[in-house]
């Protein structure tokens, strides 16, 4: 009788822990996600309750040696696989921001392999303007679309590029390398705040996704590691 009771308690405890784990956020300061293999299945999903965005800023740092197309940040809603996508087009050598399926291309960026790049992308649904900040350097402000928000439950993925809401991955668009310091805001960051992010000074963390309090799920082979730091 006692053994049965203990077994039931173990199951209850396990259940409790699983649900608690799913809702826990982690402070990933000083850490990075490592995508060590080319697959069409390995990714990290970022969870947020946010929906109906009238403005977005996404910042992240990435490191790769890929010489092909790859997605860096993929946000989909039930209506749009590419509601907010940051994508490197290796054929045209340009960084692309896809907002609600409209593409803004930014060429002439020195997207060197084997070095960390800080990339911030802003979109304002009122003016419809999109801007890319590459290692702190602004691009021109381009019109993509205005008048309607990015609505609905969002599915945010790093490591793969969504061609459908939560799926449709292509191995030849996957990220192999490292990703860190991902933040997302529901407003457009000022030039000064973006500079603070790039220079790793004090900045206001994301209010949609916060690397210091991140709710995420790893699927398949992705590792959470310490960022390599210099010896002192």
């Amino acid at each position, binding site marked *: 009788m006692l053994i049965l009771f203990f077994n039931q308690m173990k199951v209850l405890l396990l259940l409790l822990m699983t649900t608690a784990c799913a809702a826990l956020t982690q402070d990933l300061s000083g850490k990075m996600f490592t995508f060590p293999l080319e697959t069409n299945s390995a990714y990290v999903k970022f969870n947020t309750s946010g929906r109906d965005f009238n403005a977005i800023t996404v910042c992240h740092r990435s490191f790769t040696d890929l010489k092909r197309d790859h997605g860096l940040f993929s946000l989909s809603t039930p209506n749009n696989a590419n509601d907010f996508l940051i994508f490197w087009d290796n054929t045209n050598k340009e960084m692309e921001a896809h907002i609600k399926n409209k593409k803004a291309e930014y*060429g*002439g960026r020195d997207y060197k392999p084997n070095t960390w790049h800080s990339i911030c992308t802003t979109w304002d649904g009122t003016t*419809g*303007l999109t801007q890319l900040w590459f290692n702190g350097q602004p691009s*021109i*402000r*381009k*019109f993509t679309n205005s008048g309607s928000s990015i609505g609905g439950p969002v599915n945010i993925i790093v490591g793969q590029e969504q061609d459908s809401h939560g799926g449709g991955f292509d191995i030849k668009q996957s990220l192999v390398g490292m990703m860190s310091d991902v933040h997302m805001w529901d407003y457009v960051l000022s*030039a000064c705040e973006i*500079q603070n992010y790039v220079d790793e000074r004090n900045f206001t963390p994301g209010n949609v996704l916060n690397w210091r309090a991140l709710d995420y799920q790893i699927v398949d082979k992705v590792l959470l590691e310490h960022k390599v730091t210099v010896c002192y």
Partner: protein
Amino acid sequence: YQMLLLLLLVASCAAIPQNLSEKMFTFPQETNTAHVRLTTSRQNLPAVTVCFRFFTDLKRAHSLFSLALPSFDNAFLFYNLASLDSFQMWVRNTAANFEGLDFKLNKWQSVCATWDAASGLVQLWVDGKPSSRKFTNSGSNINGPIIIALGQEQDSHGGGFDVKQSFVGMMSDLHMWDYKLSPCEIQKYTNGRGYAKGNVLNWNSLEFQIVGRVLIENKQNACQ
């Protein structure tokens, strides 16, 4: 009386000068219609200096500042042949070519051009660095009703736009004087401080009309 009042209101709306200090015009897409239209009551200019700051990633030819008269569509035109690293200044429909002026993509740059009818010489200053002085034409002033377009290149007085000559990017601090600025004054303009504002066009008191998608936005300044 109502019509008169309406007319007055419309006319005054178009004529209210705005202080665009710390602001920029953003031309966010390639069109053959979006432009800022500037006019001035000044009609007889024996010398001209125009300065502005611009930011673009265009690799094709584009107009930066297009001033037309009824008889000269390129009366004073800054034309960047970006693909060839070559720049053209047009005065009263005569062009002078400037090579190797080091125009950069995705970077704010300050440009000034001076011309006077006496010598007929045009000179460009890019980020404070002078170009060679080149002859266009002398003997006649820039004379007549002036229409200036930012964002498009005029092939006729106020129109004749070509999408493949349009400007996409940002522009700020536009000034125009009816005399040649000295190199020292141009240096002050380039550094952004303590320069005499334009007496034909003054960014801090600009009368303009926006046509199509051109936005007035705050300049994106670095942390102070």
